[in-house]
Each structure stands twice: as C-alpha cells, then as structure tokens.
C-alpha cells in the first residue's frame, strides 16, 4: 500500500535470527502505524509479567505513518517496550530521522527480542541486516558512540544509549542525533539486551498515493505554520517560551520538589533572558518548519565549548526549578550530562530534587550521600548526583531506581516526598492548580505524563479544539475531556506528527492527508475511533500486568500540600476530587468503576 514500506523486521538477539515478514493489510487498517503498530506488537509479543529488563521484553521501533513525507512536523518516531520504571507500556516519541530511514530501508516496524551474549549493535542497510560487535563502544557516551559508528558505517542514522542505559538506570533514554526517546526507561531495555546502538541506512523510495495533492497539502500547512503566531516564539525561545507565564500568571511551575509552585529565580532560567545570549542557531526535528529545537552554546568560562540542543521547558523545570537551581550555565551542563550519559532529564532532575528534599528534612544525611551536602540550589551537588546516578554509585544507585522504588528502599517516611504516578516522575505542570492535568497524570498509560493528552493547553487557556470555557480549578467534565484529548493525541503518535502542531491538523486535517498518502478513506470519527482503540489496547496491556485502580492515584504530596504561594495559592487536589475525576474518566471510557473494560467495549473496538 502506498505510504508504507510493507514489511516488519524482527531480530532475535539471543539466536541472531533475522526475520522479514509482510505487513498484513487488515492490520494496517486497524492500527495504521506508529503507536498503533507498537502497542499491538507489544501486547502480542511480551508475555504477561515479563521482567522488563529480561530476555522476554521486546524493544520496538515504530516510525509514524507520515515519516519521510514533507508533512510539516511529521517526522516523529517512537520506541516502545514494557517499562522498567513503571511496569506499564512505555513509549517515547522523538523527532529523529531514524523513522524515515527505517521505512526507506523497507520496514514499517523493527522488533528486537532476546538478549545478546556480548555488547552489540544492529546495522540495517536496506536488505542487509547484521548484528555487530560493540565491545569497543561499551562505556562510551552517546555522542562518541554515534560518531564511532558513523565512521564505520558512513551516513547511517544512529540511535544509541549512554552509560545510564548500560547500567540499567530505570529512566535511561535512547539518543538519536541529539533527539531523545526520553521517558520510561527505554534505554535500560536496550542496555539489558546489551544492545548499544541501532544504525539504519535506507535508500528506498516512499511513494504517496497522490503526489500532487500531497504536495499542495504539505505546502499549505507549511505556510500556515510559518504565518502562525507560534512561529516567532517557538523558533526564538523554544519550549521554555511560556515559563514566566507558568510562574507568574498561573502559579503552576513545580518548584523544590513540589514544595512550591512559583520559582523565585525564574528570571535567570527564562529563555527571554538567556536565549539571546546563548542560542547559536535553530535545530529542527525532521520535517519541522517551526523548530523549537535550538543549539545552546557556551563560549567562555569553565564550560567553554559546551553545545546542547535545548534547554527545553521540561528540563528548565526538572534540572532547574525543581532542584531550586537558577544558574543557566550549570543547568546547561546538567542537561549535557543527561544527554551524554543517556538519562531522561525529567526523571533525573526529579530524583535529585527528591534527594535534596529528604536531605533538607534530615531523612538523608551526609552519611547516606557520601559526604555530599545536597542543598536545594547547589549546582555542584546536582551535577555530582547526576553523575552518580548514571554510574550507579552510592546514593546514585538507589536514585537510579526512580523515586518510587528509591523511597521504598530509603523508608523513614520518604514515600511522602516521592512525587510520581505509576512510578513515573511527572513533567512541569503543577497539577494542584490544573485539575484536568491532574487527571491526565493519573490516566496516562505510561505514568505521569503531559503528552498522552496535552490537556495543559486546554486547561491553561480554557479553549482548544471542541472545548470552550474550561476552568482549570474545577473538576467538572474532566473525565470526558481527558478521554477525548487522549484519543486525539494518540492519532498524532500514530501518524508521527508533533503535538506542538496540534492546533493545525486535528482529525479534520488528517482525513485529507491520510487519503493523499495512503489512499485510505477514514472519516473524522473513524480517526478518533482509532485513537480510542489504541488507548484501550494499551490499557489492556497494563491490566494484564496487574494494574488496578490504586495505580491511578496521585502521590500524597499533591493530595495534601496546597500550593503555598502565587496565583494558585491554596489549591490542592483532594481525595474526593481525585476519585470523582477518575470515576468520570472510567465512565467516559466505558470501563467499570475498577477500570475494567466491558467485553462489549473490547469487541466493539475490534480488539479481540
């Protein structure tokens, strides 16, 4: 079928077997691509209760359906596996060329199973698929690894892990050309398979169903994006653009391990302040005409020569405000450490902030920290601890487990300091003052997450898509809202389109794009139905892993400690509000009070 490569590639690292099989057409229609393919393959290929870091977990690489075509921002690809951090499905999307390259090599999906006897990397060059020795690469950082492989394999696109993945840090990530598949510990899954890297070269053609119409559509959307108001802010200041707004106007910027919702040092980490001083150039994801990615560079001082892509809003929070740290150069260095070692910067920052908080209250002492004074705002302590996490040294070994497991190990009431849902440390939205987002954290299939629903956009502005007049402090109507947004955003992950373009396409726009690329006719409601099907499938995977209603709870701090200062002062999510929103959500999903889908629901969604 047009738009697809038509085949699946399976590699078993235990036996070395390589299998190429055709992609059945019925399967295409039901799951379309990206997260749809990935969720189905995960469900079918991982036995219940498999060890996420053992041989029976699989690592899936799934390009979005539109990867490779010039549909603006349609260059997203994702990795998927059972998460070593949450035990749920993990998937993490990045804007790298890896997806289009895999499709051009002739595969719509790569599934890696088993465990290699020794460090290896996978090399794919169209029909030529090899498992190669990576002994010399083990221990290297992500940039050096990619450079080494490109030296041998020429112009391949390389995804790889750093030492955090090798050391099975439960939130290690996967890097590809300075883009990361960041959340949920997919890098640790790679590490557990002793798979250092995946290098792909593809030379095949990608043929759309109707090239002329596709050209028109791509150009129209590109022009629309260039003319949009977001263009200037995105390209000049990146995702941190709304940091000041989140602090001053909304009072929902989680600070010092969620003790506060406004960061006093925010001006120093606000891109309106630092972007003009440090931004070297824009750095786009594949196919993006309005790149929020920018190269941050330091030319003088102790970090002279530092270059990273960022600093993203999420890391300004996790490595900045959450740790009470307001020095932008030190923050950049922390970001660089995470990138080079292959650590999810959100979870890493959250783990450091959690430890600082415990230190402040005397639950951790210098004895536990190896003599380190873990004061909020101390960059030296932060950098040292990140290094210790990546290497699993001392306290770092405990924190490498994520805040949930770490608090279980530390005990002494530290559970009350561990902010997570399903074991995942949350992103930069103080949901005590954004009730719909609180629900979104609770319901997301991969643990606390802003991107399964993107509800923050609607909640904070009151208006998006078909919703209007939404009040962020109210719990009313949030069940339906989050369900609908999750279904819509899942479509973005099927097609591989950036959620920062969410306002441009919506289900309506995707009807035409799908037709011109594949020839498939999908109505708007069928497109949303696809999102619903996939979300139910992910939920079924999680239920099979033993998840219950209890796993949808918010952490204690967000239920008991009101935001102390700022515009959202006094707000908290009460136990009652939490339960009401969850009831509403389960109802909107057609699930029981315990979160179980009915037989009817499952067969109605074609999911048997």
């Amino acid at each position: 079928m047009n738009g697809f490569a038509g085949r699946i590639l399976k590699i078993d690292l235990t036996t070395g077997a390589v299998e190429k099989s055709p992609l059945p057409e019925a399967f295409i229609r039901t799951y379309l691509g990206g997260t749809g393919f990935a969720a189905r393959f995960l469900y079918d290929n991982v036995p219940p209760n498999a060890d996420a870091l053992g041989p029976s977990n699989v690592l899936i690489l799934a390009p979005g359906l539109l990867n490779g075509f010039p549909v603006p921002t349609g260059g997203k690809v994702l990795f998927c596996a059972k998460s070593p951090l949450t035990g749920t499905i993990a998937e993490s999307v990045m804007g790298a060329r890896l997806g289009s390259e895999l499709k051009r090599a002739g595969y719509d999906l790569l599934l890696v199973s088993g465990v290699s006897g020794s460090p290896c990397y996978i090399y794919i060059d169209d029909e030529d698929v090899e498992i190669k020795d990576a002994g010399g690469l083990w221990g290297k950082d992500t940039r050096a690894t990619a450079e080494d492989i490109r030296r041998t394999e020429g112009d391949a696109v390389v995804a790889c892990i750093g030492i955090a993945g090798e050391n099975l840090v439960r939130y290690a990530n996967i890097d590809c050309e300075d883009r990361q598949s960041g959340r949920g510990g997919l890098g640790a899954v790679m590490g557990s398979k002793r798979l250092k890297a995946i290098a792909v070269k593809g030379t095949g053609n990608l043929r759309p169903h109707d090239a002329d119409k596709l050209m028109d559509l791509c150009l129209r959307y590109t022009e629309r994006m260039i003319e949009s108001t977001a263009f200037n802010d995105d390209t000049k200041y990146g995702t941190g653009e709304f940091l000041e707004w989140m602090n001053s106007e909304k009072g929902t910027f989680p600070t010092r391990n969620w003790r506060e919702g406004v960061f006093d040092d925010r001006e120093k980490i606000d891109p309106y302040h630092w972007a003009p001083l440090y931004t070297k150039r824009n750095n786009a994801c594949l196919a993006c005409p309005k790149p929020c990615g920018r190269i941050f560079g330091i030319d003088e001082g102790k970090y002279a020569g530092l270059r990273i892509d960022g600093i993203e809003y999420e890391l300004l929070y996790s490595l900045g405000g959450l740790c009470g740290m307001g020095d932008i150069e030190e923050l950049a260095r922390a970001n660089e450490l995470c990138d080079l070692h292959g650590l999810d910067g959100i979870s890493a920052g959250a783990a450091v902030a959690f430890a600082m908080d415990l230190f402040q209250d005397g639950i951790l002492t210098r004895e536990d920290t190896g003599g380190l004074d873990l004061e909020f705002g101390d960059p030296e302590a932060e950098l040292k601890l990140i290094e210790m996490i990546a290497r699993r040294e001392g306290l770092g070994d405990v924190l490498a487990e994520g805040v949930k497991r770490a608090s279980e190990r530390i005990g002494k009431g530290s559970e009350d300091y561990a902010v997570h849902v399903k074991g995942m440390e949350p992103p930069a939205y103080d949901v005590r003052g954004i009730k719909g987002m609180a629900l979104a954290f609770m319901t997301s299939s991969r643990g606390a997450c802003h991107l399964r629903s993107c509800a923050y956009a609607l909640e904070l502005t009151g208006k998006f898509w078909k919703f209007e007049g939404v009040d962020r402090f109210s719990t009313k109507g949030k069940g339906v809202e989050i369900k609908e947004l999750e279904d819509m955003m899942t479509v973005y992950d099927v097609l591989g389109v950036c959620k920062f373009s969410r306002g441009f396409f919506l289900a309506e726009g995707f009807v035409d794009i799908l037709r011109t690329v594949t020839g498939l006719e999908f109505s708007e409601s069928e497109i949303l139905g696809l999102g619903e099907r996939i979300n139910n499938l992910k939920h079924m995977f999680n239920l099979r892993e033993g998840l219950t209603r209890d796993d949808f709870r918010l952490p204690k701090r967000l239920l008991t400690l009101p935001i102390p200062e700022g515009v959202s002062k006094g707000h908290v999510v009460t136990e009652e509000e939490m339960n009401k929103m969850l009831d509403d959500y389960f109802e909107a999903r057609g699930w029981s009070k315990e979160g179980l889908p009915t037989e009817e629901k499952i067969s109605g969604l074609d999911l048997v």
Partner: protein
Amino acid sequence: MRAIVPHLELCTGCRMCEMACSLHHEGLVNREWGRIRIHRKGIEHYVPVACNQGASCDKECVKVCPVDCIRDVNGHAIEVVREECIGCGECVEACPYNAIHMRGDVAFKCNLCDGDPTCVKFCSLKAITFEEGVPEEFDRAKDAAEAMR
C-alpha cells in the same frame, strides 16, 4: 542568473527542501532524488547544497557532457535533458560543488523548478533563497560540506 543561495547559519536541518524537491520532481520521496541535499556534522552544522547555475563555477558539467544533454533549455536554468542522458557520470565527477547526481543511469540536477523553486517555499527560516548569488556564498557552503566528509 538566479540560483538557490545557501545561508549556512540559518539552516535548521529540517530537510523539507530535500523531501519536497524529490516529491515535486519524481512523485515520491527519496533524499537520493533530491536536487538539493543537506549535509550534517555534529550538533551544530547543517549545509544545504544545490547547483549554483554557473554563478560560481565554469559550468563544468556542461563542458564535459559527451552528448551535450546539459543545457539551458528555457532561459531559467541549466538542466539535464533526461531523454538524451547516456548515464556516463562525467558531469558528476566534474562538478566542483557536488551538485549533480546519478540515480540508476540518469544524471539529474536542480532546474529551479522552471523558475518557481519548490524548496525555497518550504524553507521556513529562509536558509535558502532564490536570487542572484555571489560566488563566496556558494564557496562557503562548498567548503563547509567538504569539511564534513
């Protein structure tokens, strides 16, 4: 003659130009069919390279073609007349800018889309423009691309 002029500091590496060029001319997407190509090295460098239409070269491709199939057909651009190309690859060897390519047994290069360049429309940050170029601009891109090899 006007040509596709690269502005190195502005290129974001989005590769819209490559994809759009190939889609426009071939009805499919393949970077190896792009008349414009983006070269990348490390985290900081992207370089767009397309033919300068003689603004900065001596039209070596035209000179070496044994069957004279590279020529100015319509006053817009120097192009490869596909039907006449015998696939010898001499032009590819001769171009100092690495701006003419072979795929299968046919050479192809930028023909400025008959005077209405597709790639430029897709370049949101104006890292490539359609204008009268000065040789230094093309040479900087050439040197930068060569340094990446």
